[in-house]
């Protein structure tokens, strides 16, 4: 990776960790903690996105003090690789393709996170998802079904919004700034 790639990866990690502040101010029921990873994937490529995702996971643990969520780093790997492939196909150029790409990403992310959540943590993870799991369990759904349903419902919405936001970001880039990212021209 070049020095410029490193600085961009650092930016992606910072976006992943700070965007939660805006989401919390708006009281949105999502995390958007992969916006930076998706952005780096679109601007540079898969290797840089993978680094951004994994470093975000580690630093998030350092900042929050909760290191038990480290196994979810696997989800960041999936998101980074999928986002790089989607960017290569030009899916972030228009909202009409970015949102379905986000739904696909959410599907894959949930397919990875639900088994981790179920087998390693018994379905108890971050607040919002676990509340949905508990409500579904109280309604009589088996634990596995409740965990999967909670993961899919939150991840589909979260990643669809994240991809739409990255699409808006790329479209809002001034031409002089966009010209500095050869991956955008590809």
């Amino acid at each position, binding site marked *: *990776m*070049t*020095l*410029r790639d*490193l*600085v*961009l*990866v*650092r*930016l992606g*990690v*910072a*976006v992943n*960790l*700070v*965007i939660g*502040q*805006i*989401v919390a*101010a*708006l*009281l*949105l*029921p999502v995390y958007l903690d992969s*916006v930076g990873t998706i*952005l780096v994937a679109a601007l540079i490529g898969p290797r840089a996105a993978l*680094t951004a995702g994994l*470093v975000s996971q*580690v*630093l998030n*643990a*350092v*900042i*929050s*003090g*909760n*290191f*038990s969520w*480290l*196994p979810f780093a696997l989800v960041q790997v999936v998101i980074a690789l999928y986002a790089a492939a989607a960017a290569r196909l030009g899916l972030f150029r228009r909202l009409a393709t970015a949102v379905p790409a986000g739904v696909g990403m959410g599907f894959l992310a949930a397919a990875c996170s639900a088994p981790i959540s179920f087998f*390693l*943590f*018994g*379905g*108890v993870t971050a*607040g919002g998802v*676990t509340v949905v*799991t*508990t409500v579904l*369990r*109280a309604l009589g759904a088996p*634990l596995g079904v409740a965990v999967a349903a909670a993961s899919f419902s939150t991840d589909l919405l979260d990643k669809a*919004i994240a991809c739409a*936001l990255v699409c*808006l*970001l790329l479209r*809002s*880039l001034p031409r002089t*700034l966009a010209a*500095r990212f050869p991956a955008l021209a590809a």
Partner: protein
Amino acid sequence: MIGYLPGRSPLHRAHPYTTLALAGALLLGAFALTQPREVWLLVAAAAVFSAVGGVLRASARTALLLSLPIWVLLFVLHGLLGADPRTTVGPVALSVPGMARALVLGGRVTAIVLGFLTALATVSPHRLVEAMTAGGVPFGRTFLLASTLTVLPRMRERATQILEAQQCRGLRLGGSPLARLRALGPLALPLVLGALAEVDEQVLALDARGAGSAARRTALDPPADSAAQRALRAALLVLVIAAYAWKFWSMRG
């Protein structure tokens, strides 16, 4: 949250890799163990680890605060909503297998959190960077881990400024979910676009300081390592592999 707490304990004086290896072994061990008694022995091991570092009080308090919400959710999801058979404790009927599972899962999270909080409190970030540099870790990796933490407060401050500025211009943060979603763009776009515009300036500044050089760097004050510490790290690796081998062998049986 807990950060680095200066001290002279054996963990403070140990090579940073040794302390991190101990915390890592607790994490991997926690996922290998499946019986309540085994997991609680691991929690005890994490407490001993913390006591050796002289940070048991601070780490245990923070670990309890962080794992308490998880304990509550585990109690509801597994203890109250778990499978039969049930036992009555006061006014509630608790699931017996659910409570056993909650004890394993809660103990697992508590051991991991306590172990890593101890590592955070006893490993000086400066010594870690020095150890990584002396170990030949490429500049890029140390840069990413160390410098991102210093960038975060600035980025958070900028997010707050944008939030206040947009509110002054009439942006409403409340309303329907769709209205709040629409407000996301005016808040997130300036934050990220502003940071992107500064990238080239930061690259120039780093390049001027020789950050782009591929030459191996010399650590100014590398932490001392020893054969005993290297042996301990190797033994921890063997122990973790043995724990997983035992787990999978038990599952087959």
